[in-house]
């Protein structure tokens, strides 16, 4: 046993030295945990920002002008007045996403109690913007009309008064969501790439043969690779969370970073094991990359980090329960966004642990076989 620990330790130190001596990998890891997190988090927003709106104003009353003027930056660009013919072709040509059609004599009909209606069209091929934006546009219109009506002493209140309290992210800021999820996705990506590349590198350079004539077992080699590469990623992820997310982007982290670190460690066993497993099917880096890319995309996109699990078909949700990334994303979201403690997240941790053991065993079997067959 002592023998095992000593060899794992020495081989792991060798792994770390190899990693530190490879400037390309080092720069890649730093880039991924800093620049990539920052740029994706600040670049890919799902908020309504800078949306282009056009107005067909057939009423030309003070109220209609007031409505158009109420659409303000940063949510909306200044509304463009167009005529009815342009309304269809303009949206076809992606010139604007929202179109407000105010019918003739709208203000007059409203005050007479003729129950007129305003039409808001959204380009529903721009999913993220259209979905929330159309609610924004109609509530702004309703508000402007209510204000106008109140001046005339008419109330337009709804039967109940709904008060929404946004928990865990009071301003519904997408930056908060994407920045943390970006760190999580990068953990998965690097785990697969680094562990796989570490094996392929030994194979391409012939050093794997050398390892095999030394008195070390396949399990020792693999555990050493897992701990060394895992450590690099763990440190990178924690630095990324505290430096880039908390300090530079100024985003609060709700839960315990220690608990999160424990989860990463468990998850990394499974993810690095998967990387090693993929690497055993490839003999060169290009082949490894061709295998890893589709796996990575599925691993990340379908884990619930890009889109909520419940929106996926049920069969797919069931299949994805086998992926450690699904549980890791749920675990990370509970701790980092909602401040959940161990009493809440332990089932997810246990699931990850079970999957990690399974992945490790399969990867080790593959690894042994691949080594023996050169």
């Amino acid at each position, binding site marked *: 046993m002592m023998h095992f620990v000593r060899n794992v330790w020495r081989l792991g130190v060798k792994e770390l030295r190899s990693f530190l001596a490879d400037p390309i990998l080092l720069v890649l890891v730093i880039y991924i945990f800093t620049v990539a997190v920052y740029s994706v988090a600040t670049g890919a927003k799902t908020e309504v920002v800078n949306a282009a709106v056009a107005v067909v104003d057939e009423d030309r009353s003070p109220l209609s002008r007031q409505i158009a003027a109420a659409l303000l930056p940063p949510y909306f660009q200044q509304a463009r007045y167009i005529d009815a013919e342009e309304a269809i072709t303009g949206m076809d040509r992606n010139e604007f996403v929202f179109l407000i059609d105010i019918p003739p004599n709208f203000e007059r009909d409203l005050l007479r109690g003729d129950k007129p209606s305003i039409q808001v069209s959204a380009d529903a091929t721009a999913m993220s913007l259209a979905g929330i934006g159309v609610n924004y546009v109609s509530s702004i219109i309703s508000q402007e009309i209510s204000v106008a009506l109140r001046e005339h002493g008419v109330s337009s209140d*709804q039967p109940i*008064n709904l008060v929404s309290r946004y928990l865990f992210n009071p301003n519904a800021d997408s930056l908060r969501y994407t920045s943390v999820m970006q760190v999580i996705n990068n953990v998965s990506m690097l785990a697969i790439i680094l562990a796989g590349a570490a094996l392929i590198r030994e194979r391409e350079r012939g050093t794997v043969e050398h390892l095999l004539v030394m008195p070390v077992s396949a399990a020792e080699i693999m555990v050493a690779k897992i701990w060394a590469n895992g450590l690099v990623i763990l440190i990178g992820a924690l630095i990324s969370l505290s430096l880039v997310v908390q300090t530079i982007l100024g985003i609060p982290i709700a839960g315990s970073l220690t608990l999160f670190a424990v989860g990463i460690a468990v998850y990394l066993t499974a993810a690095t094991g998967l990387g090693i497993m993929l690497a055993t099917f490839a003999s*060169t880096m290009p082949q490894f990359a061709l295998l890893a890319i589709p796996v990575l995309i599925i691993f990340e996109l379908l884990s619930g980090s890009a889109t909520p699990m*419940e929106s996926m078909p049920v069969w797919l949700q069931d299949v994805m329960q086998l992926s450690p990334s699904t549980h890791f994303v749920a675990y990370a979201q509970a701790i980092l966004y909602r401040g959940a403690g161990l009493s809440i997240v332990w089932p997810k941790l246990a699931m990850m642990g079970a999957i990690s053991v399974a992945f490790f065993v399969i990867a080790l079997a593959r690894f042994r076989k691949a080594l023996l067959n050169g």
Partner: protein
Amino acid sequence: MQEVAPKVAQIRSLTHRYGDNAALEDVSLDIPAGCMAGLIGPDGVGKSTLLAILAGVRRIQSGQVNVLDGDMTDRVHRSRCHVRIAYMPQGLGKNLYPTLSVEENLDFFGRLFGLTPAARRERIDELLAATGLAPFPHRAVGALSGGMKQKLGLCCALIHDPDLLILDEPTTGVDPLSRRQFWELIDHIRARRPQMSVLVATAYMEEAERFDWLAAMDDGHILATGTPDEVRRAGGHETLEEAFIELLPEERRKRHRAVTVPPRQADGDTAAIEAEGLTRRFGDFVAVDNVSFRIEPGEIFGFLGSNGCGKTTTMKMLTGLLPASEGVARLFGKPLDARDMATRQRVGYMSQSFSLYSELTVRQNLELHAHIFELPYDEIEPRVLEMLKSFELEDVEHSRPDDLPLGIKQRLQLAVAVIHRPEVLILDEPTSGVDPIARDQFWQYLLDLSRNDGVTIFISTHFMNEAERCDRVSLMHAGRVLAVGVPRDLAESSGGGSLEEAFVEYLEKAAAPSRMTDGVIGRAMPEPDQNGRGKAGRRSFSLQRLWAYTRREAMELLRDPIRLTFALAGPVILLLAFGYGITFDVEDLPYAVFDQDQSLESRTLIEGFEGSRYFDEKTPARSETELIQRLKSGEIVIGVEIPSGFGRDLLGGHHPEINLLVDAASPFRGETAAGYVSGIAQQYLAERYPGLAANIFSVETRMRYNQAFKSVYAIVPSVFTLILTMIPAMMTAVGVVREKEYGSIANFRSTPVTRLEFLLGKQGPYIVLAYINFLTLLAMAVFIFGVPVKGSLPALLLGSLLYVAGTTGFGVLISSFTNTQVAAMFGAAIISIIPAVNFSGLLVPVSSLSGAGQIIGLSFPSGWYQPISVGAMTKGLHLSDMWTSFAMLVLFALAYLFVARIALRKQER
């Protein structure tokens, strides 16, 4: 040398550098024409660089070079030379295509030189017959032996009857019989066409004896030129190898000691290594066939044979690296068990290529091995120092192996292999490519280990003079041991009296029944066919050459399962992942209610949610704390809190307040959910209690193009943009860069094919492949995701064709300035994905992008294809609505090709 002798090449003050290293330094040389001229010297002295420059495939940095009476810096002369010079680069079958058959390879070269189909057929048959390859026209080149590959390489070089044949180390790693046949073949060709000049580089000094003229090279300089006799005389020694060492500069020479082999004291009768009927199969292929031998302790046992004859496999079985399919290997009488760590302690192994950690220093490598082999802790430091001292590594202790010359690296490998004082040392071709002085020095160490420490040494080599130093050798070929014995005895047993001739005799005996050597000698070489050459060779654009590349690329692609699988299955997987994975649909939201009122009205309100596809009710909560706890765990996304007195206030028209607790960690889902809740609640109550609603005006919302507001209708066509840029760009980039990595790019450099023909030829198959991808995606969109084409199908079909022409063109462009497949792949993926995801309209509509974002988006084809795919599929548009996008796509395809043509160089730097 006579002044009048015609010259095939004249070189004046040629200098060539790679970074700070000078491969050639101020070389001036005249190479005689019409004879067999040779360059001799160990690896890395500049032979290959010189040959590449003479062949016109490498650019001249400084100096003047005339080949075939023309200046090689002149582009017109060079392109004329492509049909007159044949160049065979270093490496076994380096410029051949391993997955293509013998005949397909020859056919490709025939097409490149513009031969008509009939002429090709005739030439191929003649050449195959003359080289003895005729029985295997359909065998894949990858499955040929080294000797056969080199013969095929020669056939490919001769297909257009060159005036100058340039061969770079054509016989390195080839067995002695094939080597001899190869040279006989060359003699034969020269006898038929005496006007042809042949220029050969070799590291085997013995081979140089047969050249008419040679130049000895070392460290970028010419040491001596002349006939072999003249060079020997200049060095004052009997063999060229000794003469070569004598010609080296004083300071290099003084470290050299001639190797003398002290006699070995035979002791005891236990065998150190014993193999009995060892056999190893890889599938159907028998790599090692029933090999038996016995090695005594302290003996130096040599394994002699060509590349791929089974030497390495046998050695791996003896180290336990590879289990034997049949037979036993014994180490000191005990059967070898790969799992037994104790045997590994007794064996030291040095593999064929350098296999230490190049990221660790010399000292760190030694320490790592000392630790792993569990030397007692206090012995490690002294042992490492001892190794550094006795292998003369003290000066380089803190250097990394990559910075050291090959000779020193091999010394380090030996030091590492013996650090744990093994009793047996297994060395796989430790001296390949090492210069003669370092090789002799290496042997001093080996003799010392064997004679003084009693270490049993098992060594493989293909140098005959090294084999002669072994106590016993075994001659190996095609997985079988042909003979075992004391080198001198073996040599004397043959008529010629040398080990090499003995080996050739054994090989001939073994090979006779297999027909492999049939027809090598005696069959006439084809007469040159002056009409067949130069037809397409002179043309500046030839469809035949373009088609040669397209055809070959397609064949290679179809035979590469990993690339083909990725290319065909990749888009399917991606569309499934994106189609299901990126959705803005918010459905089946888990929610729980904390109803403090429990009235008819509160239950009516809750009823409103139950019928909705957006919500999925969980068990009611009993407190606000419970709601928050359940939100934290992620079990529910919305908590609805109904206050007591709700029913009373509602009926009383007091607009009672309802609290919604929304998990906004994912803000899009949170906001959308809150919007749905309030919409449904207000509408449901207004219907049930019509008197309460104000109902003075209405805001009607319309989701255009996508009434149900389902993500698939928008995401699936948008994802086409992404997939059809990423995969085709990657595949194309890899397709071109592969040739650079594997060396077959030499064929582009040394044949008449032009840059445009090459690029278009390579791009062709990938356009077809990408279009197959598109059709697959379209079928999936329609039949799996149920996204119909509402607009014009012809517009979509045409737009997609233009788009993949652009994206494959982008891949070609990337490949023209990357050198490794990994760089090409990541470069193509990252550069094409970023604009496609962020700026083409996939996530944010182009109209809402900032000015810079819009410009970036429109600078890539993805920004113009996105409106076409979404327009034709979901918006129901037609060609006339989108013609500018089509025009732009055409422009991109042409522009990429144009830039790639400029960036691709016909000559290497």
